[in-house]
């Protein structure tokens, strides 16, 4: 078999062959084993961190009385924010008929799902006795108690579990026709049964397609307000409380923009190496990277506005605690985190104004990593600098993460990486049927489609 030219425009056959062969090949690339091995090692760091935590309790973390939230909430918000780009790409861009989304929506959705899985671990463990976490759900119980529906923390439970469920369904529905393609292409009996089971007998009937498309469009329409609501509710966890630095009306839009910012950064962080490793240049073109960089730049500017307005409204309030909060953030013991945040999230992304930078995958990769770090720092600044310096000077304190905080955080990256590597090995990372549709529409003008 001759190797296809990686830069030739795709045809319906090359779409079928190239995308499904990544999954159906018997020769797994060595890089894949290498990547999964790293992910698996880190996954075990996570399991170890959770094991020790369950044995000893949350005392092994750095959390203390003024700073009760610490890494657990910083990482929760970071992960859940990353997830948002997946839904944004698959739902909002679908509604706006942005066809370029087709190449990236599948793995962006997978990224959402895995990021939400990582996010969910943190509040679950942070409750202290995770085996009682089901108490958060309203179920008839012998204690005759119901959850407190007036608490943003409970809203969060509903928002995040709805988000996880809807993301999973959206992803799975998108996969059904592709699973049928894999079922019909594979030679292996086991794969035929496995994909056949998951494809649920999909036949590509015209009536099925019509219901499918209507349902998919409706799901996109439902997922769009959902994704906005999820990070809005996450921001309520802070904004509804009265802690200086949290009690601000800018929080919901600023959190949603931050989520999009970090999510697109993560999509780029994943797309650039994947495109290189699997020769996906015909599908994920420089134009795609350019578009994502532009969305990132726009979201970054909204986030920058959020930082300015946050400090402005604290200053304008002329409230002692708020003024103290600003001074402490800018020049206090955690000033390093604030200034690094400004560097990562405001200064560096301005490079994206340059077309040459947006066309350069190396630069984009670098900037996306910087933004990922910046968005993590943002949540660190919000959680830690606000809590450690509250209204009451007698209860001021410092927060230092322990090795178990770091272990769990790095460990969830292992969970994320392991899930992602398994996903790209067993499921098509680009939607085959949507790609076929796109190729068909593009070829309508000139009927010169050669196999």
């Amino acid at each position, binding site marked *: 078999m001759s190797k296809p030219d990686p830069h030739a425009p795709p045809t319906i056959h090359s779409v079928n062959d190239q995308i499904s062969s990544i999954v159906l090949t018997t020769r797994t690339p060595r890089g894949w084993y290498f990547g999964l091995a790293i992910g698996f090692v880190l996954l075990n760091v996570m399991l170890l961190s959770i094991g020790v935590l369950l044995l000893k309790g949350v005392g092994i973390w750095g959390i203390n009385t003024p700073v009760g939230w610490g890494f657990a909430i910083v990482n929760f918000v970071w992960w859940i924010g990353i997830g948002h780009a997946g839904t944004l790409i698959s739902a909002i861009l679908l509604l706006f008929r942005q066809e370029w989304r087709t190449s990236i929506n599948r793995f962006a959705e997978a990224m959402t799902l895995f990021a939400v899985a990582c996010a969910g671990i943190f509040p679950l463990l942070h409750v202290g006795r995770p085996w009682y976490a089901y108490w958060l759900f309203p179920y008839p119980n012998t204690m005759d108690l119901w959850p407190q529906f007036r608490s943003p923390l409970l809203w969060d439970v509903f928002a995040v579990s709805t988000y996880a469920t809807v993301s999973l*369904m959206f992803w799975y529905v998108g996969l059904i026709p592709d699973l049928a393609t894999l079922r*019909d292409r594979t030679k292996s009996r086991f794969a035929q049964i496995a994909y056949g089971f998951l494809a649920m007998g999909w036949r*590509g*009937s015209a009536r099925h*397609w019509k219901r499918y498309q209507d*349902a998919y469009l*409706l799901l996109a329409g439902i997922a769009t307000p959902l994704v906005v609501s999820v990070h809005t509710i996450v921001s309520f966890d802070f904004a509804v409380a009265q802690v200086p630095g949290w009690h601000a009306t800018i929080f919901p839009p600023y959190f949603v923009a931050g989520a999009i910012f970090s999510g697109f950064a993560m999509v780029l962080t994943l797309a650039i190496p994947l495109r290189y490793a699997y020769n996906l240049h015909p599908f994920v073109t420089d134009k795609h990277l350019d578009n994502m960089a532009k969305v990132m730049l726009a979201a970054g500017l909204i986030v920058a506005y959020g930082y300015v307005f946050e400090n402005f409204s604290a200053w304008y309030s002329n409230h002692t605690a708020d003024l103290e909060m600003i001074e402490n953030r800018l020049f206090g013991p955690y000033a390093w985190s604030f200034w690094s945040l400004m560097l990562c999230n405001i200064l560096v992304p301005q490079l994206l104004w340059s077309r040459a930078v947006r066309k350069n995958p190396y630069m984009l990769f670098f900037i996306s990593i910087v933004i990922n770090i910046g968005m993590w720092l943002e949540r660190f600044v919000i959680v830690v600098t606000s809590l450690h310096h509250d209204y009451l000077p007698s209860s001021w304190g410092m927060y230092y993460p322990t090795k178990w905080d770091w272990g769990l955080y790095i460990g969830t990256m292992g969970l994320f990486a392991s899930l992602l590597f398994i996903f790209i090995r067993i499921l098509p990372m680009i939607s085959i049927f949507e790609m076929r*549709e796109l190729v068909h529409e593009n070829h309508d003008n000139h009927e010169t489609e050669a196999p």
Partner: protein
Amino acid sequence: MSDPLRYGLLAEFEDAESLVHAAHEITERGYCHVDAYSPFPVHHLAEALGFHRSRMALVVLVGAICGLIGGYGMQYWMAAVDYPLNIGGRPAHSWPAFIPVTFELTILAAALSAVLGMLALNGLPRPHHPLFAIDAFKRANQDGFVLCIESTDPMFDEGKVRELLRDLHAKEVWDVPADA
């Protein structure tokens, strides 16, 4: 005329356009137990078969309304009726605080009804189907554009159907046996 040994006649067409044309012609002549299969959603194909409205929007609307009423009603009953807590004299029926959960449950119920409704109306999951017996049908999920006139159609007559499919420039025609 129904034939117990035959599911129908399956024909493959050159491309999406000729499949839509064939579907349209066949439906025009009065055949009604016909379905077309394509590797991606083809514009106007379902309409050519006389299938105009999927009614998915109605299913989702009903789901959303159930989620809305169920979500709000649950919170009202739990927080204001079954276990009202008097905290500083604040009202038990504090409706603004119930909005976020109501919203999320509306979304959840709407999404569940979209997915489960689509699968149920499509008759999925259906692990086996007579068409899967034809090897060429595998191409319907890759690059083939096929159409099946089912033997349950009141107008089904093998000779006439074969002739019609030939007239419509079908590339090849297969006899699909019924399930044993």
